[in-house]
């Protein structure tokens, strides 16, 4: 009796709203003591009180898959079906982050696609920490925006299969939603302008190839790129964006320093070598000095000049492929050992075993990241 859905509740996606949670998990929740004690006879108001007491989110944990209070409250909300205004209030409140996530989860399960995007995307700006209980009983650290991202992009969360929603691009193509405007967009523009100024000061050639997605593309493409990348940047850490810039700048400077140091070394070496040779020749006698020295000096000079030119080209190429982190002399040396390693790796995988069953099993193991079968 306590487990029956409210008779005045609408059916969600064509079925009893409680059926959004699959049978085994549903039975586990009904047998749970938290459900029996705390969730009996809850209304929308008293549910808020219970939600404020939440201190972690998660699905089920342990050997016998005990459900968390979070998932019990989600089930309760599915049972009583609060109005959309109440759910939006849950999401909009700033004080209690777990109430927010609870409301967001419920809306993701029951709301229309447009509602889901409209109400969940502002939560991307919430960076607060959350405690998540994993399947083995341990706690993990996560953040509100990470949870929202999981709700919007993955199809499984907290042991509940999330209903399918249309992709954002599809909804934008229909015209029901505006293209997404990230909160970081202004900062992003500033970064772009700063990058462009820096690049104008450096070599022009390598720069725009390096920044392939920030380059001199037509405005529409740039808008699209920016939108795509702002979405991507919101998904990743903000620090990583700045770190990457910092590293790239530092790397460029370091390359220049290294080049300068190397030149200085070479000059110093050359002088030292010449001085040594002079001293030696002077001891041996002047006869040998002039032809050998002039020849060696010219040869050295030519070699140095060639090397300098070659290095300058290498530097150019290095700047152009700064992202790849490979320079031409190093690449040549790295290829033969890499080929050997790949050949050995093929044998290690065991996927080329004569017995087809074992080869198939090894292929599955390799795709799961496990070592091959020991025969």
């Amino acid at each position: 009796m306590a487990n029956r859905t409210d008779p005045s509740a609408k059916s969600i996606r064509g079925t009893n709203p409680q059926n959004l949670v699959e049978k085994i998990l549903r039975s586990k929740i009904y047998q749970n003591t938290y459900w029996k004690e705390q969730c009996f006879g809850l209304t929308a108001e008293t549910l808020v009180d219970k939600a404020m007491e939440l201190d972690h989110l998660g699905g089920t944990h342990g050997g016998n898959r005990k459900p968390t209070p979070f998932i019990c409250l989600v089930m309760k909300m599915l049972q009583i079906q609060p109005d959309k205004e109440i759910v939006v209030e849950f999401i909009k409140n700033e004080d209690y982050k777990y109430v927010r996530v609870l409301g967001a989860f419920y809306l993701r399960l029951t709301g229309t696609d447009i509602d889901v995007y409209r109400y969940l995307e502002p939560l991307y700006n919430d960076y607060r920490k959350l405690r998540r209980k994993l399947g083995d009983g341990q706690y993990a650290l996560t953040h509100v925006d990470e949870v929202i991202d999981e709700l919007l992009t993955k199809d499984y969360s907290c042991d509940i299969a999330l209903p399918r929603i249309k992709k954002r691009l599809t909804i934008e193509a229909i015209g029901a939603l505006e293209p997404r405007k990230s909160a970081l967009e202004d900062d992003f523009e500033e970064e772009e302008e700063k990058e462009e100024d820096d690049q104008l000061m450096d070599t022009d050639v390598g720069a725009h190839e390096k920044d392939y997605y920030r380059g001199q593309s037509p405005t529409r493409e740039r808008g699209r790129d920016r939108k795509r990348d702002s979405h991507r940047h919101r998904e990743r850490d903000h620090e990583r964006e700045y770190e990457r810039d910092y590293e790239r700048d530092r790397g460029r400077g370091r390359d220049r320093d290294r080049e300068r140091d190397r030149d200085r070394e070479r000059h110093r070496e050359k002088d030292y070598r010449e001085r040594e040779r002079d001293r030696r020749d002077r001891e041996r006698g002047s006869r040998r000095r002039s032809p050998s020295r002039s020849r060696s000096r010219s040869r050295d000079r030519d070699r140095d000049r060639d090397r300098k030119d070659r290095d300058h080209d290498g530097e150019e190429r290095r700047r152009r492929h700064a992202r790849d982190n490979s320079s031409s002399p190093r690449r040549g040396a790295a290829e033969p050992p890499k080929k050997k390693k790949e050949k050995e790796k093929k044998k290690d995988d065991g996927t080329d075993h004569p017995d087809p069953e074992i080869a198939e099993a090894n292929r599955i193991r390799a795709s799961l990241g496990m070592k091959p079968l020991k025969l």
Partner: protein
Amino acid sequence: MIEVVLNDRLGKKVRVKCNDDDTIGDLKKLVAAQTGTRADKIRIEKWYNIYKDHITLKDYEIHDGMGLELYYN
């Protein structure tokens, strides 16, 4: 390499080849790849002993040809 048989008594009987130093978690992933259920939905038991994910088959003394019970979470 050992071969383990998992039976859920509802029609799903799966033979899985694995190493004896694989963990139960790895075995669940292999079973999931073969049956199509998710790995975290699978529970492997032997007469009320729920097998834990981080222990190896060798430590549970699971030998070649042994039958395990397949349940779902």
